[in-house]
């Protein structure tokens, strides 16, 4: 028994000593003169070049900044957002985190969880290095995150080979596309591939663009001013267009059981003539620099694919517009004391992540288009012989203007969640556009009342 007790005491002592060693890790780092930064990173590890980011971005930063230790947590899609909400509720926000300018990061903005980065930009004289549109005040009323760039949320990927092989001429005119349905259906090919299981996809990647076309570039300002409502023609017509797309078979109702990202490979392999996604999806088709594999290789990108937007919606009041929003980027926890070594380290990391090197890297992988004006897209494309999708993407940005608001970028989630559900109800054929419009208006009025 005494022997057993001794063993128990020794084990207990070991546990206590080892746990205190782990617990003292940060202090130990501090003793070495290192600042530890907890970082919440947003990354889809299944995408090409994602794994390289660890080596080419994060490891590089640590080797160049030996006084900073990064403790990184990588998450993607919904789990990322859920974890962020949990961090906010616990008051234990990571020091540096990936975030949205509004929409999905509403809580970060409304709870004052992140710092205004503009004073830090001004202090370092970096304001002129960024596209002024990217530095516009965000949901919090200030620059809560330093954005990667400007994101357009509607991109129509076109598989020209599928169209050619089926005797069809390339057109993104709404009515022309509608006429293609019967020819393609007869051969078991979808007209438009989309992943509508996640409810934000339809709203963000198609409906926001449609609302801009019918509501005008200033629809949100007029809505906020009380000049228009969701039951007016501009919004009902937008919903009716989505209804028409489902009813005519332009979008198959079975897309409602397709999880986000699932249809990219079926589009690349010719099971659909078009794919609707956001501009960020471009990167998923490009070549993984480690393996040399690509969903769409460089030659096919040049010859068989185009990056466009749907045009000429029946009765639209704005031509050729696209929905866009300030891109995602990096924010800093408001818990970090102003003027502290940690703030200096966190700011150094954010400057690096949105600096010339990382933004050039992100451009080369198709992850984003730069907000940093030091990155000359044409020059980088020529020098690094970037894949055709990069240059096509630059042309696409110039072609589809003006930019109109993205719904979840301007509306509160109490309202856009009703729109998201309503769009799925229309997809299921269980609610009419007018019913959905009335529900959205009710949600908007309730939001204004509780504001």
């Amino acid at each position: 028994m005494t022997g057993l007790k001794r063993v128990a005491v020794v084990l207990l002592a070991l546990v206590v000593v080892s746990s205190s060693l782990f617990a003292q890790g940060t202090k130990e780092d501090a003793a070495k003169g290192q600042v530890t930064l907890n970082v919440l990173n947003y990354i889809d590890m299944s995408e090409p070049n994602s794994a390289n980011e660890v080596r080419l971005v994060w490891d590089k930063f640590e080797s160049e900044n030996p006084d900073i230790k990064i403790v990184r947590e990588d998450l993607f899609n919904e789990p990322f957002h859920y974890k962020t909400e949990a961090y906010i509720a616990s008051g234990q926000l990571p020091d540096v985190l990936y975030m949205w300018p509004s929409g999905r990061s509403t809580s970060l903005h409304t709870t004052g969880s992140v710092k205004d980065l503009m004073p830090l930009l001004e202090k370092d004289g970096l304001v002129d290095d960024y596209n002024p549109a990217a530095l516009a005040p965000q949901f919090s009323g200030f620059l809560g995150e330093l954005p990667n760039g400007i994101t357009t949320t509607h991109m129509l990927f076109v598989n020209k080979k599928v169209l050619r092989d089926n005797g069809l001429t390339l057109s993104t005119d709404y009515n022309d596309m509608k006429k293609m349905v019967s020819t393609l259906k007869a051969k078991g090919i979808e007209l438009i591939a989309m992943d509508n299981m996640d409810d934000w996809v339809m709203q963000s990647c198609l409906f926001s663009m449609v609302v801009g076309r019918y509501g005008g570039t200033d629809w949100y300002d007029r809505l906020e001013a009380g000049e228009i409502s969701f039951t007016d023609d501009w919004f009902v017509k937008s919903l009716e267009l989505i209804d028409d797309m489902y009813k005519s078979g332009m979008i198959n109702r079975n897309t409602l059981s397709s999880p986000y990202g699932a249809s990219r490979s079926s589009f690349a392999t010719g099971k659909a003539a078009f794919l609707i996604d956001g501009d960020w999806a471009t990167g998923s088709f490009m070549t993984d620099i480690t393996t040399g594999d690509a969903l769409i290789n460089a030659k096919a990108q040049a010859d068989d694919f185009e990056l466009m937007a749907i045009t000429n919606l029946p009765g639209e009041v704005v031509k050729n517009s696209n929905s866009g929003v300030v891109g995602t980027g990096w924010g800093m926890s408001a818990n970090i004391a102003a003027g502290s070594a940690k703030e200096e380290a966190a700011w150094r990391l954010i400057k690096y992540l949105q600096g010339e090197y990382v933004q050039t890297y992100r451009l080369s992988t198709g992850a984003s288009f730069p907000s940093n004006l030091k990155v000359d897209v044409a020059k980088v494309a020529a020098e690094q012989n970037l894949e055709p999708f990069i240059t096509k993407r630059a042309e696409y940005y110039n072609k589809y203007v003006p930019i109109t608001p993205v719904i979840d970028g301007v509306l509160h989630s109490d309202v856009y969640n009703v729109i998201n559900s309503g769009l799925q109800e229309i997809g299921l054929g269980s609610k009419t556009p007018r019913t959905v419009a009335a529900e959205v208006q009710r949600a908007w009025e309730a939001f204004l009342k509780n504001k």
Partner: protein
Amino acid sequence: MAKVNTMADTKREQRRAYWALVLPGFLLYIAVMAFPTIFSVVLSLTSYNGGKLFGGKPVEMVGLKWYVRLFGDEYFYRALKNNLWIVLVSVLGQIPLGFFLAYVLYRGLVRGKDFFQTMIYLPTVISTVVIGILWKSFFAPHGAFPELMRIFRPGYEYTMGSHPMIPVLFVILWMYSGMYMIIFMANLQKIDNAVIEAARIDGAGEMQVLRYVILPALSGVIVVTAILAISGSLKSFDLIYVMTGGGPANRTSVLSIYMFDKAFKGAPNYPLANAISTVMVIISFLLIGLTKFAEKKFGGRE
């Protein structure tokens, strides 16, 4: 001279031992069960809307505001309806099926008892996430199910249509019936074979043995499995979350997913999410009470 233990000393010792044994468990229960439950109810009556819970913005008591909102939301009723479907499939599907399978194997009505026992129980030990992904791929637009259906009906297209819960309910039935089979098998083995043999000698048929010997002997187990099924059904989350995420348009949502969405999707509404969890607890108690009542009224004695 050795001290003689008096009655008072013994009682004191007993009391000390009682507290030494009960207190850790009691404190643990308070910390991880009672406090969070009470705290959740309190939070459902406040205006807390995210940010630091302690030391953040001050919170106000708003009464039953979130309960009123909850009962006015059509998606709450849809989630509740789906939960009740799961309860129904669990109680009237998994338990009878589990019992049937256990009975068939126990009475040796089929060969290969060990093989069937293992295969039927297998889904229970596989990770729910793996199961969810597997079946999600099976029912996906380009998955195996639509392809199989096209063999019989060319041009068949699988859509979530009017019965999106059917695939979910099917998977729930497939996944958990094995667990009930094991529970029933374990209890069937406790029944004295001599009683069954005596009934057979007295001329009882297979159905009569089942009706008058086995089922009464298992009534307690049936109630326990029903309670397990009900509580498990009400907290079902992981499988559905992986398979459908509650969509489309909340068609496959259940109360736990509905609560999770309110807490974490978009701007969080923690008081509303806590109101939902409180309602879930109340519904659980009601259903379990109903089961106990049914057992008292119709159950036999073990």
